């Protein structure tokens, strides 16, 4: 009997089976694709993080420790399984450097001398970058070259503590891209690390280094040390968290093996530590974006299945009349569900493989074989569970109560208990409570293997989404039921004299119509909120890039170079430059705390860069700049400083700034006028913003730290090249493109764009399918009614008037509830996922083109389905009537 039933289903109900399977396929494909995304994103994060590290481990050798000296530590390191290459590097302090060029002698402060072994540059290609000259011989860092006014071929005199200085001929000028980690104090806690890497650095071939420092190492071991620089295998677990644990454990093992003689500066672990927090955010995004999609697909399938319930009841009655028992009927339903879930599962997995291939370049669902199997099985099982929930459970309920409701007149239980209002209220309460407690969505304490996500925060948008969807359903139901008279009036423009009849017909179908409108609304809100979230993310990434770089192009002068503001005029003449603004960069003591101080011209700074309101606290950007311009000695300070020193607006504060005439830090009086959180080129921690003219007059120097160059967003690279040509190595010229790379490396913009494409495509499909399928299948059930109306003399236009109300209502109500819920949900999502944004957005970025496209697609799908059914019914009206 089951075989006959299945054959019959496939022959006679193939369309409906395929439609239900399509709904299941969406859920399965969504989960499997998201699995692909998650796995691919995590693997990319690990890969990007590890690729960017110049030296994986810097092992400080403690010569006096029990484990022995450099040789034994080096041996242990090289014996370690994960070691690809290990080379010893000498570190020595120098009290100063000196060079005489073009008749003038320049002397610097303290610096560092490194002893670089042969093969170092090829082993660690990211550590040293040649700017000019050659790599064979002594090298100086770019800033040192600028300080000493030297270039390749010049001689530098290097001082030594307690020993006479020596001279070296410079072979080349280099950049040390990862100077921060290169000069870290290995083993010291973060707060004890240097604020900035040394300005003065000389790199010597190891033989030269040994010759110059062998004696000093004996007499002043505190002045000379050795580090072993290690390149590790990057064949790590794809998940940054697992990779972090793997690398950290390996470092601990090595430290144990060397009995304390080697202390590991784990640069690889540090970047993985940062990446795992981002990976967790990716997981959070997955939950936010995949879960609603799966719920929608399930609801869609339920709607499809329910739209065929009249047919199913009829068939069941027939089978009952011929002696079938409830158990037999249930078995047939289970068989139908199995066919749907297998079809949907296979279709979904194939679709996910294609999507994975197109979006992430891989047709598998995970980074490894086991991960692929896991996601494939999980997605398939989800399909089975959804089918069971939407096909078997309702059928079982119907079989239990032999006479189900004929017309869709029963009131849903959730409506009776006001579940919509409760969910909305609880969702908003959770949001309010979570916001009040200043929670952190993702908690990844530095160095600690355990990570945590505040899943509690998910509750607010999830409850609000479902609550809003149900409320939309309730309102639609109210308009269709008690508001029938109003509905008739609203339908008059489209239905004319048939508006009352149309309203009456719709009111008797109000459960299914309201449910369709709610489903379309939910699908649209899902599409709108994810699109808005993504485009807000992109907007903020752009803002972050500008905040990091300062402007389209930024020219950073070398420390010590006394570049005057008038140099801006030279830069402004470069083709493609629209505006140039100088920014002073000084250091100022606030009490004992050394902070960056930026001197600007508040009335012209915005010509070259954008200042957003969230950069400031308690006032808008314009108001803050106005306050700064209101008095020469005005200063904007960070919120932390305001708290630490209990400052009130207008308070006088004494800062100590270096006077260029005496080179001494002297007190300068300022007045506190506002709080600044972020500022172009400023660091993340505390800093100060003041009037450049006042700072210049008080310190005797108008030297500029950097010039912000506005190119109007065009020809950025060309302008960069032109300016670099003018400034030579005396200044560092960076662009917003460089900053985008830095910003994107955290929650990688590359992966997020893949996710964006994926989820937007799914949202589009779900919205269109929700509208089209539900309407199409619903109307299909009412073909006979249209046929009867045709027999009663209804013309084409009358039929259109009679049946246009239904799709029109679903479109309008769906669009309205979708737009409102989508907007609200976008707001909640952006607030809840605020940790993803840096800086937080001033406003939501609504991708109108996409929103309009989705709305149009859903509307066209609904109208198309209605038109198709209407045309098909008119054509077949006689056949349908003959069957009556």
């Amino acid at each position, binding site marked *: 009997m089951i075989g006959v039933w299945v054959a019959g289903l496939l022959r006679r109900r193939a369309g409906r089976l395929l439609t239900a399977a399509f709904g299941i396929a969406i859920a399965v494909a969504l989960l499997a694709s998201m699995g692909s995304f998650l796995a691919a994103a995590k693997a990319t994060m690990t890969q990007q993080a590890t690729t960017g590290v110049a030296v994986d481990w810097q092992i400080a050798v403690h010569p006096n420790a029990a484990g022995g000296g450099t040789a034994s530590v080096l041996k242990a390191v090289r014996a370690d399984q994960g070691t690809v290459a290990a080379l010893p590097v000498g570190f020595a302090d120098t009290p100063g450097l000196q060079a005489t060029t073009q008749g003038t002698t320049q002397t610097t402060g303290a610096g560092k001398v490194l002893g670089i072994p042969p093969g170092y540059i090829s082993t660690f290609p990211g550590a040293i970058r040649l700017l000019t000259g050659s790599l064979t011989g002594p090298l100086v860092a770019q800033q040192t070259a600028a300080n000493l006014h030297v270039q390749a071929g010049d001689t530098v005199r290097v001082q030594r503590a307690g020993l006479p200085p020596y001279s070296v001929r410079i072979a080349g000028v280099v950049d040390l891209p990862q100077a921060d980690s290169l000069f870290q104090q290995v083993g010291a806690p973060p707060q004890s690390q240097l604020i900035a890497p040394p300005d003065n650095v000389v790199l010597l071939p190891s033989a030269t280094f040994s010759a110059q420092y062998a004696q000093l190492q004996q007499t002043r071991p505190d002045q000379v040390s050795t580090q072993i620089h290690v390149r590790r295998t990057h064949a790590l677990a794809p998940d940054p968290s697992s990779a972090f644990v793997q690398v950290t454990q390996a470092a601990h093992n090595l430290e144990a093996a060397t009995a304390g003689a080697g202390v590991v500066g784990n640069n690889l672990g540090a970047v993985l530590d940062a990446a795992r927090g981002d990976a967790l955010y990716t997981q959070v995004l997955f939950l936010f974006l995949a879960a609603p999609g799966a719920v929608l697909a399930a609801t869609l399938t339920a709607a499809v299945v329910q739209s065929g319930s009249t047919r199913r009841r009829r068939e069941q009655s027939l089978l009952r009349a011929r002696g079938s028992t409830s158990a037999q009927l249930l078995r047939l339903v289970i068989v139908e569900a199995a066919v749907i879930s297998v079809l949907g599962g296979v279709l979904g997995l194939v679709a996910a493989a294609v999507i994975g291939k197109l979006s992430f370049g891989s047709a598998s669902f995970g980074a490894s074989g086991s991960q692929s199997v896991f996601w494939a099985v999980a997605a398939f099982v989800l399909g089975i569970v959804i089918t069971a929930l939407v096909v078997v459970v309702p059928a079982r309920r119907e079989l239990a109560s032999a006479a189900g409701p*004929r*017309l869709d007149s029963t009131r849903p239980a959730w409506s009776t208990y006001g579940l919509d209002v409760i969910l909305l209220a609880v969702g908003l309460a959770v949001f309010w409570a979570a916001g009040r407690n200043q929670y952190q969505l993702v908690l990844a304490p530095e160095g600690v293997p355990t990570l945590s996500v505040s899943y509690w925060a998910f509750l607010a948008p999830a409850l609000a989404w479902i609550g809003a969807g149900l409320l939309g359903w309730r309102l639609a139901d109210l308009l269709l039921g008690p508001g029938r008279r109003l509905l008739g009036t609203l339908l008059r423009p489209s239905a004319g*004299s*048939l508006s*009352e*009849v149309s309203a*009456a*017909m*719709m009111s*008797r*179908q109000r459960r299914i119509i309201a449910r369709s409108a709610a489903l379309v609304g939910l699908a649209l809100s899902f599409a709108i909120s994810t699109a808005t979230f993504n485009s807000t993310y992109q907007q903020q990434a752009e803002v972050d890039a500008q905040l990091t770089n300062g402007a389209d192009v930024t020219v950073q002068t070398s420390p010590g170079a006394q570049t005057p503001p008038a140099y801006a005029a030279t830069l402004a003449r470069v083709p493609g430059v629209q505006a140039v603004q100088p920014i002073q960069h000084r250091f100022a003591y606030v009490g004992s705390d050394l902070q960056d101080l930026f001197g600007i011209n508040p009335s012209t700074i915005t010509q070259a860069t954008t200042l957003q309101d969230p950069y400031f606290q308690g006032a808008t950007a314009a108001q803050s700049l106005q306050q700064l311009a209101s008095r020469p000695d005005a200063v904007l300070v960070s919120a932390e400083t305001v708290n630490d020193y209990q400052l009130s607006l207008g308070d006088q504060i004494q800062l100590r700034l270096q006077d260029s005439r005496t080179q001494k830090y002297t007190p300068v009086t300022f007045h506190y006028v506002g709080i600044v959180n972020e500022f172009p080129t400023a660091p993340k921690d505390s800093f100060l913003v003041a009037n450049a003219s006042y700072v210049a007059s008080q310190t005797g120097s108008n030297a500029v730290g950097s010039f912000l160059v506005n190119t109007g967003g065009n020809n950025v690279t060309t302008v960069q090249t032109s300016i670099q040509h003018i400034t030579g190595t005396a200044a560092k010229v960076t662009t917003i493109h460089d900053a985008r790379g830095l910003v994107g490396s955290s929650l990688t913009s590359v992966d997020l764009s893949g996710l964006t494409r994926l989820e937007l495509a799914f949202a589009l499909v779900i919205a269109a399918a929700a509208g089209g399928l539900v309407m199409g299948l619903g109307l299909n059930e*009412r073909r006979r*009614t249209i046929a*009867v*109306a*045709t*027999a*009663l*003399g*209804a*013309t084409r236009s*009358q039929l259109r008037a009679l049946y246009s109300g239904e799709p029109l209502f679903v479109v309008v109500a769906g669009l309205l509830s979708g737009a409102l819920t989508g907007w609200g949900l976008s707001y909640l999502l952006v607030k809840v996922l605020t940790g993803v944004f840096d800086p937080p957005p001033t406003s939501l970025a609504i991708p109108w083109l996409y929103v309009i496209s989705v709305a149009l697609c859903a509307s066209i799908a609904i109208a198309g389905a209605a038109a198709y059914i209407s045309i098909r019914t008119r054509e077949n009206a*006689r056949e349908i*009537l*003959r069957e*009556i």
Partner: protein
Amino acid sequence: MTDTLFRLDSVSRTYGSGAAALVAVHDVSCEGHRGERIAVVGPSGSGKSTLIHLLAALDQPTAGEVSWPGLTPTPLTDPTVVGVVFQGQSLVPTLTAQENVALPLVLRGLPYRHAQEQAMTHLGFLGLESIANQLPDELSGGQGQRVAIARVLAMRPRLILADEPTGRLDTAAARQVVALLLEAADELDGGLVIATHDPYIAGQMSTRWRMRDGELSVVPDAAIGVSA
């Protein structure tokens, strides 16, 4: 205007083709006139329903010609000139009895409120006021057919066609429906054709046609006997 409401000239209707071809109506020629009450009797599958559908222009002959000399316009251009009562449920399930009866009137351009009033009059004529606000699913089979007859009355066709209208009704309800159909035909001064198995109904008609294997023959008054 001629009294001949419809005419069939050598009409055949074949479904399918080749070996699988099924001849439902074969070379039938006949006429129906104003005031005539015709019963079409015959066993299941004999072609009764096909004949009714051809008369209602719900189907087209594969040979011969169907014409409606006494009907202007013809059912081909305006289906409402013929009122059809079907064997099964032919009411719009989402409209009440009263709205169902009013529907053809609204489709003809009568304002909704007036159509509703007229529908109530027709329902009252058949004694159905009490079920005016009920949906078709809430009505018994007999009540549903009576509402369908009320709807035909509202359409005021000159030819009423009924395809086994009592097939799913008990005897009492069936007799009531037939009485109403005859009453409606009288009220409209038109023709009535009923396809039926029921000898009692056939006995109530002035003319009786027998269908057997798609062929039609006229039954003399004395020979009313219907085999199922």
